[in-house]
């Protein structure tokens, strides 16, 4: 009981302490690059507790959401296929390792060439960066089917599709969600990067505008907002992961 209370109170307290430290340390700051926290919060209020929120933030979130959805769908489809058909796997493993080793933002320049600089490109690069972690996790997941479950499915007359639907996919779900969890921060980085140079809206655009025109309190307010969104999204994904583990995991006491 007390322990649970502590588990909730402790992060709140440390966060409060960190904010207080930032506040006092920056209170008398005259540095152009590190404005006082009070200025940043004022900018935060002006920028994000206003109509700008929808104009700037919503396009970014929409791009991340759609890009993640596309990348995940593609990653699951290709990954489970590769994992389920063991014969393909050894052939494509080197290529997968190669793609995994490339930093995700490397795909931006070629994607600009192919898809232009519009939304298609931005959503495309986010999808491409989310694809790999999800795909590799899906391969692992589909591979980890218990052999006796495969025997069971075949003996009881389940065809390929039924085996995929009832055995392979459920086995892979917790793994896939791990991939989504890994892909999410990457997708945010790529979203900012793709909006930074070519955009007329979005958080990346806002960051580039404010930093190049030295509106640094505004810039910092966007960084704080990104942090808040990041924490919220990650906790949501982690919570969903725990629910999926409970639904599809082997042995739970839920």
């Amino acid at each position: 009981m007390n322990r649970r209370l502590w588990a909730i109170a402790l992060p709140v307290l440390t966060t409060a302490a960190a904010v207080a430290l930032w506040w006092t340390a920056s209170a008398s700051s005259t540095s152009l690059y590190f404005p006082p926290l009070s200025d940043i919060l004022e900018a935060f209020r002006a920028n994000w507790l206003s109509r700008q929120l929808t104009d700037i933030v919503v396009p970014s979130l929409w791009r991340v959401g759609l890009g993640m959805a596309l990348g995940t769908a593609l990653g699951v489809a290709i990954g489970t296929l590769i994992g389920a058909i063991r014969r393909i796997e050894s052939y494509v493993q080197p290529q997968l390792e190669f793609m995994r080793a490339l930093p995700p933002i490397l795909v931006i320049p070629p994607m600009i060439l192919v898809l232009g600089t519009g939304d298609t490109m931005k959503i495309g690069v986010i999808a491409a960066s989310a694809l790999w972690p999800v795909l590799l996790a899906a391969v692992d997941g589909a591979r980890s089917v218990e052999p006796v479950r495969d025997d069971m499915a075949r003996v009881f007359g389940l065809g390929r599709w039924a085996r995929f639907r009832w055995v392979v996919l459920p086995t892979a779900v917790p793994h896939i969600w791990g991939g989504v969890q890994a892909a999410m921060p990457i997708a945010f980085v790529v979203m900012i990067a793709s909006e930074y140079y070519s955009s007329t809206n979005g958080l990346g655009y806002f960051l580039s505008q404010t930093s190049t025109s030295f509106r640094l309190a505004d810039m910092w307010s966007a960084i704080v907002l990104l942090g808040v969104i990041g924490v919220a999204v990650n906790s949501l994904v982690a919570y969903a992961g725990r629910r999926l583990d409970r639904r599809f995991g082997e042995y739970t006491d839920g």
Partner: protein
Amino acid sequence: MAETAPPPAVAPAAAPAGRTPILEVDGLRKGYGGDPVLDGISLQVFEGEFVSVVGPSGCGKTTMLRCLAGLLPFESGTVRIDGAAVTGPPATLGIVFQDYSRSLLPWLSVRDNVRLPLRYQAISKKQAAAQADEALESVGLAADGHKRPWQLSGGMQQRVAIARALAYRPRLLLMDEPFASVDAQTRVELEDLMLRLWSERAMTIAFVTHDIDEAIYLGDRIVALTRRPTGIRETMTVDLPRPRDQIATKATERFAELRASVFTALGHHEEAAG
């Protein structure tokens, strides 16, 4: 009248009732990577029989069942079920696996586990539900259909696996050491459950075990395997009357004799038997 002529007799060489082979294995060989495991297995199982296959741990019992079920390709020999050479799992075959908790799907409820094989059969949803419920009922789990497998004890999980096989209505049921990892009390209950289910249904059972008492108690016939490379050591008829009883049957002199001869067949020494 012409009708007084005797009815056309069944071909004289035909097997008597209950002697139609449902499973015929001839010269089955299988190894892993050049290491022979099964070295010429030949056996027959007849319609309606309960055959126990006994063999020491690791001699290849699971390997043999997987070959018989068409799950594992083998090097040479033939396996026929209902007269047709086995190339993949036949529709008339069900299995209760050794590793019951892993053979069940934890993401489905008990009832859905039992219904899953029926989804892909040419029967109506209603019929499938009825078959699944009847099977759960017959193993005493009618009230647990909504639970997930991992909420049940080991013995109950194995009942689910049995119910799944029963609902599928196989003519031939292969059981791979199904009771090897449940406690003694549960094991006794499950053995009697199997005997009851077998007597109620038109089902042939090949029951693999490493437990000699279990093999004798359950079977009409015992097939004793050798150590690896594995062949058939001996086939024995169990002439104990049915219905069998855990105490009375096992107390008979004949049971003790059979036990001794199976022990001998498996190559145990006198002291090992005692």
